[in-house]
């Protein structure tokens, strides 16, 4: 456990970077510090490894006041991932990862061997180990940064906007892998971001900082979204917070059976006739699956003649999928993103279970709200596994 006890940081020019911060960061969980620029979130994190010393108050790790520990020794025991990775440009990938073990006195050979294993762990090909950071993509650099922070197997990891410098697609990948990795490792992680979506996705707990270094709210993500502590938090979390909060609500969805066409087979007569409860416009779409009954795309039956063999070129791709155990947000998105107005629900093996319309998801949301008087409450489901494939 990391604890801040009445910690303040005032710079000589009178700027209050952090104001009387008291909070406890639980062991083995991800705690996200989120807030706008200048809210003291990075300053607070840097006080945990003494890169910044507090003006008042104490920071303790597992009860020990860290100001009594030698700074360099303390830092070697705390993993640190910085913005844009902060890799050493003059060292190869392998030597970057081996940095902390070498500082701790392990032989370079041992450290390199361990570093190679870590590359596997973060999903990097070992053929990259001899390259310099400049030869890697942004996403690869971030993975090296994570591997380097993990190298000494520290119980605590500090991550300062580690995924902010990569494009959204790579960021989502890195976030998913980070969640998977944390599932295996169970580190105590303090994660800094200015992106509330990232905070909600990754955090077990979220600390919202306001400008001037004030801790505005400290709660589980669902709590921050459904019951913002004050106007600042409500404003920061944004207008979509009701929709985002659906991420934490699981409901029983009445999945309708769906007629499917198998890729490569001929279109039968009558395909695309509207089913009950489906408009003609949506009904002309037929769901096409592969031989393993996994969804491949939607076919507009008015564009192809009967007896036509269905190929991938005929299909409108896209539409997210609702997986088992997923939230209502994912189900709603699946329905909204599908050309047929029907979201495809799949099971663990990725095969089609049936479909659901946005209207049906909304009814399920209403039902969930009714059965739970306080509305969208914290902790309905904290299943962090990404259900969208």
């Amino acid at each position: 456990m990391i604890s801040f006890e009445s910690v303040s940081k005032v710079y000589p020019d009178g700027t209050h970077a952090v104001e009387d911060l008291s909070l406890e960061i639980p062991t083995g969980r991800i705690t996200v510090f989120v807030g706008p620029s200048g809210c003291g979130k990075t300053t607070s994190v840097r006080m945990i490894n003494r890169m910044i010393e507090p003006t008042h108050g104490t920071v303790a790790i597992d009860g020990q006041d860290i100001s009594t520990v030698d700074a360099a020794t303390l830092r070697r025991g705390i993993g640190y991932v910085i913005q844009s990775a902060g890799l050493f440009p003059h060292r190869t990938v392998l030597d970057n990862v081996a940095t902390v073990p070498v500082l701790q006195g392990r032989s370079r050979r041992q450290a390199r061997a361990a570093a190679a294993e870590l590359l596997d762990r973060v999903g990097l090909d070992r053929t990259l180990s001899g390259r310099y950071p400049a030869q890697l993509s942004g996403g690869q650099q971030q993975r090296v940064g994570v591997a380097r922070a993990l190298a000494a197997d520290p119980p605590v990891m500090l991550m300062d906007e580690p995924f902010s410098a990569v494009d959204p697609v790579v960021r989502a990948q890195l976030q998913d892998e980070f969640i998977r990795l944390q599932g295996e490792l169970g580190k105590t992680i303090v994660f800094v971001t200015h992106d509330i979506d990232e905070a909600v996705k990754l955090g077990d707990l979220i600390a919202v900082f306001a400008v001037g270094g004030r801790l505005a709210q400290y709660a589980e993500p669902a709590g921050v979204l459904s019951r913002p502590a004050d106007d600042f938090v409500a404003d920061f979390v944004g207008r979509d917070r009701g929709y985002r909060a659906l991420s934490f609500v699981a409901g029983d969805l009445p999945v309708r059976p769906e007629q499917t066409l198998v890729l490569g087979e001929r279109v039968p007569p009558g395909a695309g006739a509207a089913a009950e409860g489906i408009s003609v416009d949506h009904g002309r779409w037929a769901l096409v699956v592969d031989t393993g009954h996994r969804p491949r795309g939607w076919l507009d039956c008015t564009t192809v003649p009967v007896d036509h063999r269905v190929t991938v070129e005929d299909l409108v791709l896209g539409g997210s999928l609702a997986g088992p155990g997923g939230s209502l947000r994912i189900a709603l998105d699946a329905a909204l993103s599908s050309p047929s107005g029907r979201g495809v629900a799949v099971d663990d093996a990725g095969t089609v279970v049936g479909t659901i319309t946005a209207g049906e998801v909304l009814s399920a949301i209403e039902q969930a709200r009714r059965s739970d008087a306080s509305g969208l409450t914290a902790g309905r489901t904290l299943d962090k596994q990404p259900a969208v494939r």
Partner: protein
Amino acid sequence: MNWEWLQRNEQQILAWTLEHVWLAAVPTILGLLLALPVGAIAHRYRWSYGTLITLAGLLYTIPSLALFVVLPGLMGTRILDPVNVVVALTLYTLALLVRVVADALDAVPPLVVASATAMGYKPLRSLVTVQLPLAIPVIGAGLRVAAVSNVSLVSVAVLLGIPQLGQLFITGFQLDFFTPIIAGIVLCLLLAAIFDTIILLTVRLSTPWTRAVPGR
């Protein structure tokens, strides 16, 4: 060009060239070795930066001839001692490189330095194994200027009677004879080019990462 004169004095010219080489090379190396810690201090302690850079600038403006003449008095050396030349040129190199080293260290990305600190590097180890290597290309560029300027400055020392390629200019001037002057200029240029190439190659070999091109 009087080739016959050159041939006749071949041995003497070779001796002067060798003398010239060490009189220029030794101060370049010593000046660099001194500039590294002084530049590092100017970089690390901001309050010292202005003072050190100003002192270095003043030092560089002292005319070389004056320095050659004053040094024996200050150091108790004989006026003909080549050590005077070495010391003077070392000071010029130091003056030139202090700013280069300080600025080169300043130019190392702050994120890289911060990440070294966060990994648990102590300041000196971070300086020597992270910041200095990354500053090599900029320091190398400054060193090339210093080395070439030393090759040319050494010849001034001939006025004190310390023999090296400058002797060719004196000889040519006294005899009103152009061959030794041209030979002196060509040899100085050649030496400068060799020094420059050696530094360039050393920098290239010690910074393989700067040529690493994005793969795939």
